[in-house]
């Protein structure tokens, strides 16, 4: 297990990570650091390897080669048992929220506390209320996940991810399936956690509006490779045709699987 020096402010380091499924290579030599307290957005088109990268960072998948260092621990070769220790340092908000549907919202948030701490019921109850207050969901404490809106489910999922006071939060497509106001609200929450708790956030997304609101830095993936790491400004000013196409959403461009407008029309009129 590698330990990085304490003066190193990188809380996460992804070093030369490769991942292939069978003969299909999904990530090729991906490297980037993430500093403590910053919000990093991982961008890229569908099938670019974003979700795979996220699953590697949270220890659901193992890299074929390379290493992922989270708060000083290299998780790439860890056993499931060792990994469980590291997992308490971060929380994950899944695309669907992934709250347990058989429980109420507050029971969902209490679950990690009951499982991993020796706290008494009263203390857990208080902590759950604090977390719910942080995400502005106190009024929905006793409702079931299926009875609340998509945006509320995702905020509840953030509250559950916050339960064990992690240093890092991962968000998988937080804006998927939400209306613009719910998206802004979630973005506001991500920013709030950064300013109030110095939370390090890693957000996998492809919604540019949200990126402009929350990102300190961005990592852009294209077909399994990092094509840009930098600030928002670097992204907007980039000359790379792939990035330009991503920002404008143009159909004509270098991205795989796309055909030009003219080709499409030719095909249609044939």
């Amino acid at each position, binding site marked *: 297990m590698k330990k990085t020096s304490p003066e190193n402010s990188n809380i996460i380091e992804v070093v030369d990570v490769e991942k292939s499924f069978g003969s299909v290579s999904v990530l090729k030599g991906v490297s980037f650091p993430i500093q403590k307290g910053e919000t990093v957005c991982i961008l890229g088109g569908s099938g670019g390897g974003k979700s795979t990268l996220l699953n590697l960072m949270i*220890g*659901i998948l193992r890299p074929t080669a390379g290493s992922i260092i989270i708060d000083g621990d290299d998780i790439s070769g860890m056993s499931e048992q060792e990994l469980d220790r590291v997992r308490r340092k971060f*929380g994950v908000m899944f695309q669907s929220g*992934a709250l347990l*549907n058989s429980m109420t919202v507050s029971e969902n948030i209490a679950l990690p506390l009951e*499982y991993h701490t020796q706290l008494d019921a009263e203390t857990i109850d208080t902590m759950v209320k604090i977390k719910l207050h942080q995400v502005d969901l106190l009024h929905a404490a006793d409702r079931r996940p299926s009875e609340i809106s998509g945006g509320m489910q995702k905020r509840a999922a953030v509250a559950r991810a916050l339960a064990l006071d992690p240093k890092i939060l991962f968000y998988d497509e937080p804006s998927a399936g939400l209306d613009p106001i719910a998206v802004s609200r979630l973005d506001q929450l991500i920013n709030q956690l950064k300013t109030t708790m110095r939370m390090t956030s890693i957000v996998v997304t492809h919604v540019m509006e949200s990126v402009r609101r929350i990102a300190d830095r961005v990592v852009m993936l294209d077909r399994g490779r990092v094509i840009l790491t930098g600030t928002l400004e670097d992204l907007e000013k980039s000359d790379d045709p792939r990035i330009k196409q991503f920002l404008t959403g143009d159909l004509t461009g270098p991205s795989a699987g796309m055909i030009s407008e003219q080709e499409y029309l030719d095909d249609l009129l044939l």
Partner: protein
Amino acid sequence: MPRTGLRLRIESTLGLLGRKILALGPGALHFLSRVGGVWMLFLSSLYFSFIGPWLGKNKLRKQLFPTMSNVGARSFPIVSMVAFLTGSVLVLQTGNALAKFGQINEVPGLVALAMTRELGPLMTAIVLIARVGASYTAVLGSMQINEEVTALRTMAIHPIGYLVAPRFLSMLVMVPCLVVLSFLVGMAGGALIAWTVYDIPYQSFVERTVFYLSMSDLYGGILKGMVFGILISVISCYYGLTARGGPTGLGRAIMVSVVTCLVVVVLSDAVLTGLLMRIV
């Protein structure tokens, strides 16, 4: 050597056979991987049921009793209805034949042996495959598809310890209990028909039953119940946890799980019956 018609025919038959055998390969591998998966899940369920909680790996207390009450108490009405009807139909079907030979007094013994050795455990298992097994697969499968299982892993909560172990333990404990109840209810059903249709008084029904039954018959039935409980819980949880691909995948998982449970339960019933006859 020129190819004669016969030679050609043999070659093509062999070729066809070879292709058929080769085609079995992936299917057989798939089958073996499933068997291996179920076996591994069984071992980890044992670990998380009996060792894990003492080592602080998982906590069972909170989910165990609701699951047990669902498997046990809430299955009791349907299990007892099926057992009652099985017992009464048994008497109706065999009573006439036995009466022809003047052996109507043997009916209680027949019901007692059939219920304890065979029908009690088997009918209970079939009811539980439908009522509990299918719901295990459905619940775990939709949790799997909804990323809830992955979410548990990222919260450092082992899905087998949290989801499978309480379900496994509940079945292990409650199926034998239900089987014992099904003995009683089945015999009561038989006694009712024996009394109303064949005029065998209740007291003599009970006397004959006690005369015929030995403890080994009861133990055999209870053992079968435990084995069925283990098989149903592990197989249905396995198909739930491996469900993939949205609602269609979930529907398929439930179907495969129920069919597999049925086949495996009937097969293991045959094997156990053979073994128990050897031993006892």
